[in-house]
């Protein structure tokens, strides 16, 4: 949700203001630049530059945008709004902010709470819990403390206060999100949105109070809910989904986590730090599928093997019964291939982290002849909705988890911004390979682009060579100062032209480090150019610096990276 206002300028003094309205050295992310340049008057430019100096003034910044643009009248009188977004999650919010900036009269419909899954039941509260687990881990690790010369007594925690921290964080971010939209004048309409026909929809609680509105363009951004496979009975107490787990109502002695992807892995980090023992139940042949195999292996060695975790792989949980009448939670496992019963687990709690299902029911898609696929709304690469006949539905877009392209909050937001660009006359296709992803375990895992097997497959098909470069956190001064030398960064690239195909990081603050790589991919920066960029010493970012420098590209730098500024 911050993405819409995070224009990054280093410092006003280094920017030649007198040059063209859109100097090359002003490197906004691809979208921003276009959004900014066409109508940037010199006054507006300097105003922004001064405001942007302070990161803490987001609300001021919003006020500036509002004053400049405001949520004006619709451009055509035929419609109530230029743009209506169904769903005020991170995707809808990102789209709304960008729409206002582009001068569209915008409304957003929310049937639950502003912020959606990410803010209320996902990334945000889980980061609060992970912040706690990270500190617990550090305090419990006597060797680690001793190696610093620190002496710490036994660390303990108050479950309710930990839970409160997560809840408070969610409320705070929700408040920020709501205020940012209100300040811009986005109309927040309460109720469930239903599409009635082309460019027409209603919203409300489903009773006679429903209101009908028209919009030139409509974005569906209704998100997802935890996926609960058949046979699993969720009672919200002993058999739970992430929605319940984030409330941290109790810390079981032994919890089975069904699914060992991002969600499962993050919760295993939280639960083991708080003293639980964890059993992973994974349908695939190894835990942590989906990560680059080499990173997955290292992560397993650090995040799973030394902790109080065991796992069952290649099995489905065919039936899970909550604890009742003094009996523990029962999990029946069957072989994932042969479907034969294998074993019954008895645990204190089970967390279902098998993925997320799109939330698209009641959207009225049948009114415009759109058929969902496993619940997902089919879209093309521009997020335009495709109907049952394979034709594009005009003026209807779907972003975020509901289209299933990439189920990440920031991906939804980027898709929303891309759609707004298109409806305001700038054709735009989002490069999903430039969208980073992160898993906030201790240490963190992050990635962007292709994994090594994916890259090799692509290379074989398209006939190019793939090379790998790797660096270790062991060689990084800052990581060693923190006594956190465990970790590696891996670069997958084309040695012939220096294109970055993928970057994977496991180590301290990996989630923050990935953006240098994802920005490079987004902007098409090649290794031979980026390796001349300077990194402050000593910082963790030098892990990537070294990574780029260790790559062997057959071309030399294509151009000077920026116009030289004498000092």
């Amino acid at each position, binding site marked *: 949700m911050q993405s819409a206002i995070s224009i990054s300028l280093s410092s006003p003094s280094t920017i030649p203001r007198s040059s063209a309205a859109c100097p090359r050295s002003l490197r906004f992310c691809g979208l921003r630049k276009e959004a900014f340049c066409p109508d940037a008057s010199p006054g507006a430019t300097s105003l922004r530059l001064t405001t942007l100096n302070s990161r803490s003034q987001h609300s001021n910044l919003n006020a500036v945008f509002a004053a400049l643009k405001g949520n004006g009248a619709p451009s055509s009188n035929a419609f109530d709004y230029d743009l209506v977004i169904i769903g005020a999650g991170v995707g809808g919010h990102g789209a709304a902010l960008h729409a206002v900036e582009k001068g569209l009269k915008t409304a957003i419909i929310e049937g639950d709470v502003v912020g959606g899954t990410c803010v209320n039941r996902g990334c945000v509260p889980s980061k609060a819990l992970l912040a706690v687990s990270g500190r617990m881990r550090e305090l419990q690790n006597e060797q680690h403390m001793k190696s610093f010369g620190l002496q710490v007594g036994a660390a303990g925690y108050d479950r309710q206060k930990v839970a409160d921290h997560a809840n408070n964080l969610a409320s705070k971010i929700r408040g920020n999100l709501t205020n940012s939209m209100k300040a811009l004048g986005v109309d927040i309409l309460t109720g469930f949105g239903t599409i009635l026909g082309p460019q027409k929809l209603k919203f409300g609680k489903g009773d006679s109070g429903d209101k009908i509105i028209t919009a030139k363009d409509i974005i569906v951004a209704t998100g997802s809910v935890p996926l609960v496979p058949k046979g699993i009975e969720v009672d919200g107490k002993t058999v739970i989904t992430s929605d319940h787990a984030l409330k941290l109502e109790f810390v079981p002695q032994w919890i089975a986590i069904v699914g060992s992807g991002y969600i499962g892995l993050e919760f295993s980090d939280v639960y083991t730090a708080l003293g639980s023992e964890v059993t992973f139940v994974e349908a695939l042949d190894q835990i942590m599928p989906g990560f680059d195999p080499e990173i997955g292996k290292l992560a397993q060695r650090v995040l799973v093997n030394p902790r109080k975790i065991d796992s069952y792989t290649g099995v489905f949980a065919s039936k899970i019964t909550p604890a009742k009448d003094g009996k523990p939670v029962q999990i029946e496992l069957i072989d994932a291939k042969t479907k034969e019963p294998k074993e019954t687990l008895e645990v204190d709690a089970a967390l279902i982290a098998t993925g997320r299902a799109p939330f698209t029911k009641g959207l009225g898609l049948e009114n415009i002849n759109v058929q969902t696929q496993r619940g997902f709304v089919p879209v093309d690469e521009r997020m335009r909705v495709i109907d049952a006949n394979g034709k594009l539905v005009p003026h209807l877009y779907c972003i975020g988890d509901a289209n299933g392209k990439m189920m990440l909050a920031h991906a939804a937001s980027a898709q929303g911004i891309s759609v707004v660009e298109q409806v305001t006359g700038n054709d735009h296709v989002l490069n999903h390979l430039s969208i980073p992803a992160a898993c906030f375990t201790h240490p963190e895992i992050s990635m962007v682009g292709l994994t090594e097997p994916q890259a090799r497959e692509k290379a074989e098909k398209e006939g190019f060579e793939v*090379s790998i470069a790797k660096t270790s956190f062991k060689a990084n001064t800052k990581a060693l100062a923190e006594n956190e030398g465990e970790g590696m960064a891996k670069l997958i690239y084309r040695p012939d032209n220096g294109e970055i195909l993928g970057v994977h990081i496991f180590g301290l603050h990996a989630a923050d480090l990935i953006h240098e790589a994802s920005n490079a991919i987004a902007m098409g920066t090649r290794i031979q150019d980026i390796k001349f960029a300077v990194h402050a010493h000593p910082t963790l970012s030098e892990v990537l610096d070294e990574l780029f420098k260790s790559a062997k590209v057959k071309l030399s730098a294509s151009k000077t990276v920026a116009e030289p500024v004498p000092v």
Partner: protein
Amino acid sequence: MSHSHLLHTSFVPTAPPSLRRRIGGGSHLPRKPHLIQSKIREIFMPALSSTMTEGKIVSWVKSEGDKLAKGESVVVVESDKADMDVESFYDGYLAAIIVDEGLSAAVGSTIALLAETEEEIALAQSKKSSSPASPSAAGSNDAPVVLEEMPSPVPASAPVVASVSSNAGAVGSAVHPASEGGKRVVASPYAKKLAKDLGVDLKGIVGSGPNGRVVAKDVEAALAAVNVGGGAATTAAEVAKPSGVELGSVVPFTTMQSAVSRNMVESLAVPTFRVGYTFTTDALDALYKKIKSKGVTMTALLAKATALALVQHPVVNSSCRDGKSFTYNSHINVAVAVAIDGGLITPVLQDADKIDIYSLSRKWKELVDKARAKQLQPQEYNLGTFTLSNLGMFGVDRFDAILPPGTGAIMAVGASEPTLVGTKDGRIGLKTQMQVNVTADHRVIYGADLAAFLQTLAKIIEDPKDLTL
């Protein structure tokens, strides 16, 4: 170091991929000499980079006896560049680990043995003890180090672990409801991990967790029963030793037992002699009673007293390394022998003279826990300069210890027992006394040195106020 080593090893590093592909795609297949029924392969330290000359074993992903599938990670090696997983190029069993975690080996030297079948594990282990790894085998052109495929007669009857008859009835009410009448063991993830690390069989352990589940403390309790039980072991202890002695069989040494054996033979090259002494321990016992509640142990008190005496007699803390000189150690590191499952290890209390008795006791507890969990780091058992061996808790009144090579002296401590003593004023009294017997290397430590040292130690033990300073 050339990459050709890679071709000679049965193990392939996960990276760099270019190398791996070359190997994987190559026609390097195990040359199969026909008629050979079984094979034991040597696993070499691979060259993970062009500049690598030696590698450190970060961790063994697999343990001895584990089954390996081709492509599975076996060991993590730290090269001069990074940590890398090394994968097995063959199916089989990891029979014997030759280079332990934390130690380094030259590229090309043998770090472990791989057996093709389960039966050959024992054979491989005996082979290992007979041919210790030569860390200097780094030469790049010692050609015969290719996959040594040794024809080996499969032992007619490999020691088979008798499967424990799970006595469901005996476990009674503690049977987990899901355990199907005792057939299945329900244990928490950590309990399972711990049981594996400590070599404890989960069957037969009575669980104290919810619904009779076996939890970590049950495993620890079972292990403690083994250690305390000694001869009159409990049933749990019997069960906990899967490699129970089968009469009439020949069981090869474990890694640790081989190491002990080597050291013992080596000790014969040292001219040792012994000096005994009797201490009166009433004051020490009184002090112990007073501070026992603060976690102080008798072992720590004895180590501390010894260390303080050694401060005044540096020669007793010295050693003879080359037969030509004294090596006066700058630290007083008291090693204390501890019997652990199937072996003996000597965790070291470093700088025992400088550390206060409370910290020393805590340190000791930590070391013992680690020793039981087999997690001692080499520096935690290698750096002793003087050794204590105490059999007093078994009622032994005096014994004789063998001097560990590389050190100057070892003190055997007997039980502290009430003894009738005639005093100088012609009366008879009851005193608690303890006999010690020091074995020392006479090349550096002479009789008078030991006598003086023991006299100092007697003074400290009989007036132990300095121990708590």
